[in-house]
């Protein structure tokens, strides 16, 4: 079956189990009659013998119909809802008070304009976890605290970054944090595998370095690029290499300032609507190279649509110092 989702102030979408479609009403000046069981010429040919009148009823008629177009699931709201009450850990005084900003799967299904599979997939992408039946996102500081416990343990035990044992982590850290949280952070920042009956994690270098960069960058409006890179490399676990390409969609480098600077710009904080997204990007920076803007518009691409197609539609290109740059089609306030 199909479900139509949307609140009063939203445009309706129709969802199957795993896809989302924009709904539009199409009008026609013609009259459309629908007839159950009506036979087509091909179906009747086979029945040469009978010359009887078949009485058919017209089930109904209409001047309009719903047209569906596959669209991107509208998932920005999911993060917004879960950020209303991020989980700060069992010691947080916040959780002891009654808050009604908690959502279980049923709640999300009725509030988010996306199919069930798309919602569940996105929950996995944003590292949400179920605590007492409710979907929760971890407060970033708490998440870094958990990650830090793990990376410090890896360091003190001299484990290989690609073979971190779950059992030992739970034993050593279980007194500091809930076991479910330790396992959750390992699942979020590592790739789980089984070797000889034991569960291990291969730590994800890019994701860890990226999280540490975010932790550093969120403390100021912008940073001197070379200073930042130095501090960043010193902050990541031994054996990991911090690289700027790990920060796509998270931070932006300003190559035009002297000295060069870097600042936090998270794609998930930007508008979901195509035109609004481009307006927002062009108000942050007037001219963008394709390399710089791609991480910030990649998620807008519909099925089989390319970043190039989006740029052609929403931006105007020009050459600047021998490099192709894109700017807004219309003046930005």
């Amino acid at each position, binding site marked *: *079956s*199909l*479900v*139509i989702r949307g609140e009063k102030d939203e445009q309706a979408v129709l969802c199957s189990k795993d896809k989302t479609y924009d709904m539009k009403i199409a009008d026609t*000046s*013609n*009259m*459309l*009659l*629908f*007839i*159950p*069981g*009506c*036979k*087509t*010429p*091909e*179906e*009747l040919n086979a029945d040469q013998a009978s010359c009887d009148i078949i009485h*058919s009823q*017209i*089930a109904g*008629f209409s001047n309009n*119909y719903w047209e569906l177009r596959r669209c991107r699931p509208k998932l920005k709201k999911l993060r917004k809802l879960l950020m209303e009450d991020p989980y700060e850990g069992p010691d947080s005084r916040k959780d002891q008070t009654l808050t009604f900003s908690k959502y279980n799967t*049923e709640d999300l299904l*009725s509030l988010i304009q996306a199919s069930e599979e798309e919602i569940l997939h996105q929950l996995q992408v944003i590292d949400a976890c179920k605590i007492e039946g409710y979907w929760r996102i971890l407060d970033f500081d708490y998440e870094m605290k958990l990650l830090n416990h793990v990376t410090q343990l890896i360091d003190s035990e001299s484990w290989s970054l690609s073979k971190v044992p779950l059992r030992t982590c739970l034993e050593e850290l279980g007194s500091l944090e809930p076991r479910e949280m330790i396992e959750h952070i390992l699942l979020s920042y590592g790739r789980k595998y089984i070797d000889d009956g034991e569960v291990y994690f291969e730590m994800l270098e890019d994701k860890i370095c990226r999280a540490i960069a975010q932790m550093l960058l969120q403390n100021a409006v912008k940073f001197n690029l070379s200073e930042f890179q130095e501090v960043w490399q010193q902050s990541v676990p031994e054996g990991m290499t911090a690289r700027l390409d790990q920060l796509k969609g998270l931070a932006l480098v300003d190559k035009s300032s002297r000295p060069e600077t870097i600042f936090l710009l998270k794609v998930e904080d930007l508008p979901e609507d195509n035109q609004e997204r481009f307006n927002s990007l062009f108000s942050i920076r007037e001219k963008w190279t394709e390399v710089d803007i791609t991480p910030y518009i990649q998620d807008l691409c519909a099925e089989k649509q390319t970043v190039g197609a989006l740029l052609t539609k929403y931006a105007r290109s020009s050459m600047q110092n021998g490099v192709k740059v894109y700017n807004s089609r219309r003046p930005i306030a």
Partner: protein
Amino acid sequence: SGGAGGLAQWVLVELQGEVEPRQSSGLAGSLLGDLHYTREGVPVLIVGHHILYGKVVQLEKPFAVLVKRGAGESGPAGPHTHYTVTALIKTKLLFKTRPKPIITNVPKKV
């Protein structure tokens, strides 16, 4: 004949303009007309004293007929309204030529 997974297959008849009831009693329950196919498979519709010729069109984008269920009922988890797919429409009979009046009584030239 059954459709995909046993779903009923309906046919759409598309008419240009509007259908008006002969009496003012409305359309429901009234006879629209007679549908025939010529030997070449051309659909012919006789409505009142008009005859319309059409063609069979395989729909590029098939239609699904949805029936609303549970409207207005509210359970503990909220309204139960949902739509179930009742039938599929893959074929339409399109009548877009001008209806021709059927003249049965041609006065003789005097």
